[in-house]
């Protein structure tokens, strides 16, 4: 999924990668493209993790793991970092999700369980401010429940913000008509995906199919 999402990141983009699988996208960006990674705790120009046991404990990413800084990087404080996010300067953000609704609503910060400690971090700021929002997620939960849904039952992160979803089964755009499959994973049939999706799922349009 991370590798597939990486193909869609344009050369020259400023990108924020969420914690978890989205972080792995950086490793798959095709040769020849230059992408600059932002981490909301105050670094533009984030590089890969340092060798195990090295690095600076005060050079970390939003997931609080040690990272490096590439040539041309800059450090800044938190308010300035969110100027980049809230002000619409970050081109693209790749996030995880608990649920995505067919109208683009995203839930990715809380299951709403009564004993859960609520924790939101920068997720709401990112989806409110970044121009293009990609989601990477397993197509269903561990217990087989659809994560692509008609409308979210978990507390929302924001309304109508998701542009594209990369799952283990397909690449799916959020459109006015519903979930639009644009690509199926190798060996996966449309009907198989449809059964595991709770919202309106549209098959790959013929025009798109012929190009492939």
């Amino acid at each position, binding site marked *: 999924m991370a590798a597939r999402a990486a193909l869609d990141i344009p050369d020259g983009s400023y990108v924020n990668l969420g914690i978890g699988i989205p972080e792995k996208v950086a490793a798959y960006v095709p040769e020849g493209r230059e992408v600059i990674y932002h*981490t*909301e*705790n*105050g*670094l533009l120009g984030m590089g890969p993790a340092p060798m195990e046991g090295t690095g*600076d*404990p*005060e*050079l*970390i990413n939003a997931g*609080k793991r040690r990272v490096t*800084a590439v040539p041309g990087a800059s*450090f*800044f*404080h*938190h*308010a300035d*970092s*969110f100027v980049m*996010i*809230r002000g619409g300067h970050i081109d693209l953000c790749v996030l995880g999700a608990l649920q995505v609704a067919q109208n683009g609503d995203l839930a990715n910060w*809380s299951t709403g369980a009564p*004993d859960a*400690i*609520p*924790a*939101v*971090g*920068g*997720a*709401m*700021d990112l989806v*409110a*401010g970044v121009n293009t929002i990609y989601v990477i997620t397993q197509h269903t939960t561990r217990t087989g429940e659809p994560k692509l849904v008609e409308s979210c039952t978990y*507390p*929302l*992160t*924001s*309304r109508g913000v998701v542009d594209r979803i990369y799952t283990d089964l397909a690449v799916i755009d959020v459109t006015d008509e519903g979930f639009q499959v644009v690509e199926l994973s190798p060996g996966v049939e449309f009907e198989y995906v449809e059964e595991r999706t709770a919202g309106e799922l549209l098959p790959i349009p013929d025009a798109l199919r012929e190009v492939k």
Partner: protein
Amino acid sequence: MIDKRVTSVAEAVADIFDGATVMVGGFGEAGSPIELIHALVDQGAADLTVVNNNTGSGEVGLAALIKAGRVSKMICSYPRTANSTVFPELYRSGRTALDLVPQGTLAERIRAGGAGIPAFYTATSVGTPLEEGKEVRTIEGRDYVLEYGLTADFALIKCLRADYHGNLVFNKTARNFAPVMATASKTTIVQTMEVVTPGELDPESIVTPGIFVDRIVTVDNPALESELVARGVSYPCRSGCRGTRWLQELPSIFPTGPM
């Protein structure tokens, strides 16, 4: 003569009072003023409202302050972190309240508090449970919530290098919330690795001008939170040792002396 140095972390935090609001710098361990926080644990002020992005980890630094029962309310964006066990217990038992604020809104509210901006509008949290109870306003066709500036009685922050006028520079992503917290607090207390003479820091590169800083204390070899947590250390230690010689009194754990 402007000289903001004080001689010890104990002196630096001596006047923090019960019921105070205290902004604490750091994002995870990066920029966490761990020695100032431990001095505050020793000092004893209680019923504190603490502003930090997280709630500390293990049983040192901010987590030690929470564990000691001194924090009646946390204002933060992400109280759930790996190794963060102290806060969840107190939160679930109702002894520590939580005001959950999205990270960018938290940073901007602190910046506004320091900038004399009493309130501002942002799209962050619109249409979510965190919008509840807030004024929503449509401006040029988009909905925004009204958020208020946040100020504090004290800020505890950590920097790399200071001059004794209070000009500060930071280390990499340890900068995070410290510069805005320094602007938003009545009394800003800084622990620094090194103090230099005014003029030694490049005036083009100073991140926090001295006008925002009240006290500076040198902690030239600060403890590393992640290492302490990995080794299961508490503050005060389980046999009660505390103060600046705390780590030295744990020779079996730290045979090579202080970290």
